[in-house]
């Protein structure tokens, strides 16, 4: 009896409805399916929650209100009042990542946030959007973003490229952070899970009880992963807020 479980198999993309436009593979995959589910779930929470509009909120309304207040507070604290214009975008981003991360922990689910192209697409939208907002608000003055104050011009030759680089790096670090966290966590879960069945079924009789050990590790890891899932959605959103703030409150 062979048990073949590769820890990275869970990240495989499988087309559900193959769609090919020209030479382009635009198939509807398991990843796309989970994205749709995340969007639908997030929409249900918010739409269902705002259905009754009671003064004393019920469960669903509380859920919707807490998520609204959380993001609204985050924007107020980090961007300031002008940031309110961007609330819909930040809120959507947070809910999408939040549900994406959590759905990945449900059995038979798929973690689309563990794919760098997904996180990079989101980070690129944030980066390009923030840059456009900065340029729209400040015009060419935006370029002073890369010129530190009170520095002798000789040093500027060195510092401007560094500043430029540290700005360009933003979408990469933003996407790598979310992707690496999700991917590492899920790989770890799969590795420890992969120990359980072989130990219980294939190992010599005196070793069999030790199958409990990786199982216990996995249970502990699930809780850690829940924490990471929420935290990384939070971190991605708060960094988006900070980037927005930089672009809006340029001196």
């Amino acid at each position, binding site marked *: 009896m062979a048990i073949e479980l590769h820890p990275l198999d869970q990240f495989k993309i499988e087309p559900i409805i193959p769609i090919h436009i020209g030479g382009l593979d635009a198939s509807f995959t398991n990843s796309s399916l989970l994205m749709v589910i995340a969007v639908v779930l997030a929409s249900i929470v918010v739409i269902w929650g705002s259905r009754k509009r009671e*003064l*004393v909120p019920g469960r669903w309304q509380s859920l919707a209100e*807490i998520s609204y*207040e*959380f993001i609204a507070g*985050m924007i107020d*604290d980090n961007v*300031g009042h002008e940031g309110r214009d961007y609330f819909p975008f930040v809120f959507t981003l947070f809910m999408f990542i939040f549900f994406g991360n959590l759905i990945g922990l449900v059995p038979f689910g798929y973690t689309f946030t563990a794919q760098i192209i997904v996180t990079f697409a989101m980070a690129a939208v944030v980066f390009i959007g923030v840059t456009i907002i900065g340029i729209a608000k400040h015009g060419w003055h*935006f370029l*002073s*973003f*890369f*010129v*530190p*104050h*009170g*520095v002798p011009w000789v040093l500027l030759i060195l*510092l401007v*490229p*560094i*500043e430029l*680089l*540290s*700005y*360009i*790096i933003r979408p*990469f*670090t933003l996407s*790598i*952070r979310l992707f*690496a*966290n999700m991917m590492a966590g899920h790989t770890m879960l799969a590795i420890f899970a992969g120990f359980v069945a072989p130990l219980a079924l294939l190992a010599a009789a005196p070793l069999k009880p030790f199958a409990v050990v990786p199982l216990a590790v996995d249970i502990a890891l699930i809780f850690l992963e829940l*924490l*990471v899932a929420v*935290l*990384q959605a*939070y*971190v991605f959103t708060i*960094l988006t807020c*900070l*980037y927005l*703030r*930089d672009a809006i*409150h*340029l*001196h």
Partner: protein
Amino acid sequence: MNEREKNDPLRELGERLDKARAASKGPLGQAPENATSTGNALAFGWRVGIELLGAIAVAVFIGWAIDRWFGTRPWGMVVLFFLGVAAGMLNVYRAVSGLGRAVGFRLPGETPPNGARWDDED
């Protein structure tokens, strides 16, 4: 406030909510910054690590690409590597000292520092 308002059940509920919020350590009670110290330390550690490594990796990649296009091997990679290290450290320094405060950024009330050093914190 008048008597009617005082006895309003909603008002009472509001007071109870405030009390519960003050007592709780959740994100509603206080700023999420201090909410879960372990979780935040974890997230912050990740942030700093990725900031440094990501900067170097991206810079080296850009250097490699420049070398490929202009045939300047290995100088693009060498120069960009050091720039990447500097940029990564700068990002880490900013993340630690002021939560993502970039060069051009100033709080609305802050006066532009005339002649102050660009990285002067005090």
